[in-house]
């Protein structure tokens, strides 16, 4: 009994120390959040996020042809900072292009979970909004919002590249006015 008591005392001291450091660090991170999420620093951080929205290298269905055309020479998406480069972990944008089958939905959800915060989703095409032309088919999911949170919806079958550019601009506006630590 006495051996346990001394162990408990030692544990208590360490635990109390750990707790107080925890509280101190927690309060510190709250303070950092409050400082960053205000005026100038927030604008700078959001400016960095807006002009480097890197999408994931995943194509879902036929809207990928218009995404490809939008990345091409006439409607260059790279001038908005959109460049599919690097790995999944370094990407911030998931463009659900076109019809999402149940088989692809599982993978899209895995990809969304693996992306680092902040992450944004554009549902491109009628099929990603509500199932589109194939809405009654046996193998598809009626819309991307069934399993991932969507930020911008782009209608069209397929949407013109100009519509996709407008979607990126809308997303940029949305990010510009949002808090830095909001995404969770």
């Amino acid at each position: 009994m006495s051996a346990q008591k001394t162990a408990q005392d030692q544990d208590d001291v360490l635990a109390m120390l750990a707790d107080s450091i925890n509280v101190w660090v927690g309060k510190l991170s709250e303070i950092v959040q409050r400082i960053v999420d205000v005026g100038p620093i927030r604008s700078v951080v959001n400016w960095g996020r807006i002009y480097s929205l890197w999408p994931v290298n995943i194509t879902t269905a036929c809207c990928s042809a218009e995404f490809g055309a939008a990345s091409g020479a006439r409607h260059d998406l790279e001038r908005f900072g959109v460049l599919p480069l690097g790995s999944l972990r370094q990407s911030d944008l998931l463009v659900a292009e076109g019809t999402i089958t149940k088989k692809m939905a599982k993978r899209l959800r895995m990809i969304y979970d693996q992306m680092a915060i902040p992450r944004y989703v554009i549902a491109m095409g009628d099929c990603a909004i509500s199932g589109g032309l194939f809405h009654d088919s046996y193998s598809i999911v009626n819309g991307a919002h069934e399993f991932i949170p969507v930020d911008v919806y782009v209608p069209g079958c397929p949407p013109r590249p100009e519509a996709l550019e407008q979607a990126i601009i809308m997303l940029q506006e949305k990010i510009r006015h949002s808090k830095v630590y909001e995404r969770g």
Partner: protein
Amino acid sequence: MILSQEREQALIKKLKDRFPSEITEARVVRRSRPEILVKPENLVEVATFLRDELGMDHANGVSGVDYNREARFEIIYHCSSLQNKETRDIVMAIKESIPRNTPKARSLISVWPGVDNFERETFEMFGITFDGHPRMEKLFLTDNWDGPPPLRKEVRFPTD
């Protein structure tokens, strides 16, 4: 352009001469489209004859049709020949009927290796098993659909 149906009639005659009892029906549907109806148990020999003697060196595809009102499935193999330029337009349809409640058929993968994926698709869409196929599994519908084979007529759409 050849307008008569001589070449197609000649092909059918050769087939009927060689397999008088195995081929139950034979006709020319329209230009360049002869078709024969074969008993399921003789399918492999007829197909081998088509490939070796009549030069049908590849299969264009395998289709399954669900004639549920007649309680049968029909499997159609389309094949054609690339050897001579003059006969490249002919697509021979080889049909077989199997009963709907015992959907089993012989695979033609030993005759035309290209029918591999088509037979797998017919398996997953209709539930017809092909004996002799090395990998009788789903092709497109893994994780996509866990109900009955979707192209059967009893599977209805919500909007139908």
